[in-house]
């Protein structure tokens, strides 16, 4: 029982990480039709932004250093994402092949640049000791960082839902996901919403990078790329453009991965996720939420 609880909470933590990456990916595709293969780069930039900032604050106590590093990582990731939209994506609206080429190229270039500057080796990222300790929950000793991941994802989901449901920009984004042309035909400059969605997606991905530093305890140049694959699977299972679908799919993928790795065989977790994707696509080609093809 305690193993099952541990696997479940760890799976939820992993799902939370996937959700943070996939939420922006899903919103960006839903509103703009852009399959953003550079989304992993936002995560990597956020993770390295945190590590770099922390490394420059050597004499500062760990909690302030950690928090300042996290804020810096998120800020850098957000800024990077907004710049990518303005400089690279905006000139390529409706040119989907070119968008794919540019975002794939940017993802590869970002990784290569980081390797060139800081090398290929994983770098340890210091975190407060409390995050590495455990809390007993239903008899299981759960690492505290799992709770941090889950709480962060819930807060992001609640924040995004509030933003989408309660603000004018949220209204524009929800309408734009349905029919972008009609939004412009109501006199709305949808390009501002595009930049905002990219920035929000970048912030969430950078937060995933920050929390990934805590979860993995190190950062390496390929962290974004490896997590991006699962984020794409989550987005497709959840239904492109649906935030709630993405949240449900992230939890399902995280749990399936953990259970399969433990109860079947170590390494089968990734395969089981791909099988899950195939099953969902066969049964519900538009994903769990039924939105978009």
């Amino acid at each position: 029982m305690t193993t099952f609880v541990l696997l479940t909470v760890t799976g939820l933590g992993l799902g939370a990480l996937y959700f943070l990456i996939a939420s922006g990916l899903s919103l960006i595709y839903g509103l703009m039709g852009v399959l953003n293969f550079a989304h992993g780069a936002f995560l990597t930039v956020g993770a390295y932004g945190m590590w770099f900032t922390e490394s420059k604050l050597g004499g500062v106590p760990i909690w302030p250093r950690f928090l300042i590093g996290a804020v810096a990582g998120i800020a850098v990731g957000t800024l990077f994402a907004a710049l990518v939209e303005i400089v690279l994506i905006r000139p390529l609206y409706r040119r989907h092949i070119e968008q794919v080429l540019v975002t794939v190229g940017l993802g590869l270039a970002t990784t290569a640049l980081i390797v060139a500057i800081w090398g290929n080796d994983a770098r340890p990222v210091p975190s407060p000791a409390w995050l590495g300790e455990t809390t007993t929950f239903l008899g299981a000793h759960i690492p505290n960082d799992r709770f941090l991941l889950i709480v962060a994802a819930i807060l992001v989901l609640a924040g995004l839902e509030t933003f989408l449901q309660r603000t004018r920009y949220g209204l524009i984004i929800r309408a734009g996901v349905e029919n972008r042309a009609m939004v412009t035909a109501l006199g709305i400059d949808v390009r501002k919403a595009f930049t905002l969605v990219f920035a929000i997606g970048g912030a969430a991905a950078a937060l995933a990078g920050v929390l990934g530093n805590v979860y993995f305890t190190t950062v390496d140049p390929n962290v974004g790329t490896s997590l991006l694959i699962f984020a794409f699977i989550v987005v497709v299972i959840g239904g492109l453009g649906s935030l709630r679908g993405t949240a449900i799919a992230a939890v399902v993928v995280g749990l399936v991965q953990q259970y399969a790795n433990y109860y079947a065989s170590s390494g089968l977790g990734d395969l089981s996720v791909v099988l899950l994707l195939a099953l969902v696509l066969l049964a519900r080609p538009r994903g769990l939420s039924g939105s978009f093809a």
Partner: protein
Amino acid sequence: MTALLEVRDLHVRLGESHVLQGIEFDVEEGGVTALLGRNGVGKTTTLRALMGLVDRSGSVVLAGEELVSTPTHRIVRRGVGYVPEDRDVFAGLTVDENLRLAERNGAARYDLVYDLFPELRERGSQLAGTLSGGQQQMVAIARALLNENRVLLVDEPTKGLAPALVTQVADVLARVSELATVLLVEQNLGVVNRVARDAVVLDTGRVVHIGPAKELLADTPMVHRLLGVGHA
């Protein structure tokens, strides 16, 4: 009469198809100008080109201001309202949200909208996707009326509606034409006869007739030749 909207040498190419081949016409200020023609001659494309929703070349001048290189949202802000052919209401938003999205400059005319369509007030919290076709058409027209526009581009507002609703929409168009200039694409010639002052007829991407609507509709052989229908 002065021309509020001047269209000159307007071309639209969609893929391999040269849909609009240099059309030219004026829309006089006030009243309704009907844009007529058989199916597939380019009426909807003309409205989409005026809105900047398709790539176009030529000249579109609104009250002396060239619009052909202006992006859609700026065209709208210069006082052009649009009611698309398939209504294009946002199905996942409520009626209130559909209207709120259309608000510009903080002077939304909800009194006018609810006066014309009292049902929309009652259905404010209903998802637009669950409305009937007629109710969705009300939302689509209401969005365009919410702001003070100089010209309204209205694309087949009676398409697919029951006869009673067609009459209601015609009543609304008649009233709207007192508030703004209307360029109306409409297949129902009864509605055209009732509300339109002028008519522009397209055929295979070219303008083939311009004149008073009632004169055109009274000339049965011409209606048959230009529009391919007998006018009841």
